[in-house]
């Protein structure tokens, strides 16, 4: 079947060429279908879940649902205390996490000497990001609730969540700082700026959008957590709006956990409605993070 070109170079005949091409195309198409199928498994499951929750809960959401306290009777049950609890815990966690996480990231990227101790610290921070959240809950219970005698209050919950998400923010903050071009650093130092002035006036402004994105993503992790706070607050029934950090509290995920474990059919709807609210809060936060990151990228491309 082999033919020879005028130059004497052996070449594959046209027929052979087409046959092998058909086979390769077939394999190529099969691969695409396989990958698309894998993607759809996740997407379809997620879509089914969301649709199911929406059908179950959407009709239960109204102003009363957001503004009333939990109740023993499903039609009267509301999210008020859980929403305020989430706001309090989330707000305080952000307040603690942002400065500590940013400062740690700055230290590790800009100041820390490259030695074994630093490497050890960095390794541990990465490892801490992978510790199961219930472990943090138990740690918080032992340290903040009992050792520091804070009792099962908002502050104890916020401090526990701070420990939980701090590694995430430190990792994100370091990446944001590392993305600042070294030429900025050198330019600033060469003009006789001190190290701190360089950090304050050049590094931080450039890295801030990235750090903020990291903070928001860390916060959405914190707000979605039930396990560590369950250890702190217990499965409580809160019928007041917390006014300061030393009050008992509940949060959205705990309230959901509370309701979902009840047998009566109506509680399913209440739970679904609460899940929708929680998802809304989280999606809003993530969308903000994405918007920030986009603006950041566009600016640094210029």
């Amino acid at each position, binding site marked *: 079947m082999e033919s020879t070109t005028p130059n004497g170079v052996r070449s594959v005949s046209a027929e052979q060429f087409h046959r092998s091409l058909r086979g390769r195309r077939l394999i190529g198409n099969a691969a695409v279908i396989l990958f698309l199928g894998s993607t759809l498994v996740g997407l379809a499951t997620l879509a089914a879940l969301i649709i199911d929750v929406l059908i179950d809960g959407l009709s239960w959401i109204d102003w009363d649902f957001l503004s009333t306290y939990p109740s023993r009777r499903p039609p009267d049950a509301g999210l008020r205390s859980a929403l305020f609890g989430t706001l309090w815990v989330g707000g305080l966690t952000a307040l603690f996490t942002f400065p500590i996480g940013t400062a740690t990231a700055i230290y590790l990227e800009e100041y820390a*000497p*490259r030695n074994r101790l630093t490497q050890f610290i960095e390794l541990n921070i990465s490892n801490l990001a992978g510790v199961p959240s219930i472990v943090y809950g138990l740690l918080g219970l032992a340290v903040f609730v009992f050792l520091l005698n804070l009792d099962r209050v908002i502050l104890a919950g916020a401090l526990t969540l701070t420990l939980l998400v701090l590694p995430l923010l430190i990792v994100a903050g370091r990446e944001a700082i590392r993305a600042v*071009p070294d*030429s*900025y650093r*050198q*330019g*600033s*130092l*060469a*003009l*006789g*700026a*001190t190290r701190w*002035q360089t950090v304050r*006036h*050049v590094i931080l*402004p*450039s890295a801030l959008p990235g750090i903020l994105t990291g903070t928001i993503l860390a916060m959405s992790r914190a707000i979605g957590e039930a396990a560590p706070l369950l250890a702190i607050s217990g499965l409580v029934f809160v019928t007041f709006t917390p006014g300061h950090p030393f009050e008992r509290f509940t949060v959205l995920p705990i309230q959901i956990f509370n309701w979902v474990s009840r047998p009566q059919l109506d509680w399913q709807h209440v739970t679904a409605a609460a899940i929708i609210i929680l998802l809304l809060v989280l999606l809003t936060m993530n969308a903000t993070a994405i918007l920030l990151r986009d603006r950041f990228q566009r600016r640094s491309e*210029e």
Partner: protein
Amino acid sequence: MTNGVTENPGGGETRRASIMTTVVSLEGSRDRERSPGRLALPEQVSDRVPVAERPVSLSTQNMSLYYGEFRALKDITVEIPERTVTAIIGASGCGKSSFLRSFNRMNDLIPGVRVEGSVEMAGVPIYDRRVDVTELRRVVGMVFQRPNPLPMSIYENITYGPRRRGVRNRAELDEIVERCLTQAALWDEVKDKLNQEGNELSGGQQQRLCIARTLAVEPDVILMDEPCSALDPASTLRIEELMQELGHEYTILVVTHNMQQAARVSEMTAFMHMEEDRAGLLVEFGPTTEIFTTPKEKTTEDYITGRFS
């Protein structure tokens, strides 16, 4: 801040006095940011002193530089005259940039760097423990290979250095911006868009902006690390003209790969060469015309005539 930079004190001080100021500011560097700023615009020297008679600005004696175990520079001894453009030429990797950066101690940023021997500026040992690196970097300014304006407006790029030293007065800052941009031959092009981002300018304009912002901190020495290698020929020409003009007022040390450039802009030339053990050596140092026409060393001649690069 204390007096910071006020109106130019004593407009007609001699060059000597200005160097003394530098010495004093380096000596007293513990209490930072107190040095009275150098004269804004030293009077133009019409009849220039011959190169050989100019006072020494930067000098090294048996200076070696190590990156960890690796010796990058070996036994360099040189005396660079002030208010002169001095070119450093040599093949890639022979340590020209390392040598340049040892004068404002930018090498300190690299872990494991060690300098042996002495490096002095106007008689002050700059690797002395008492020398404040921040103040040294103000007195020894630097322009980088790639234009690197800070991510802020043109105005803020110029005022960045003065502001960090405590200059707050708006009128004074305005004056600095106009003077430095004019000196860097950029004022006419950007005076109407001072609030535009510095990195929106063209490459050549960005490099002139970087020169202008270096002038704003009133240095004595300006180090330039291949300042034209990222620029087109027209921009290169402008920067070269600028270097020659500034060479009357500042000590300029420029690393270049371009021998024509060295010949065009510099009065003194240092030729560096890499040895077998990859350590950089200073082969020959002298007036540019001599280096290019009657080099004393065989390696210099080979390099100049393009026998290797």
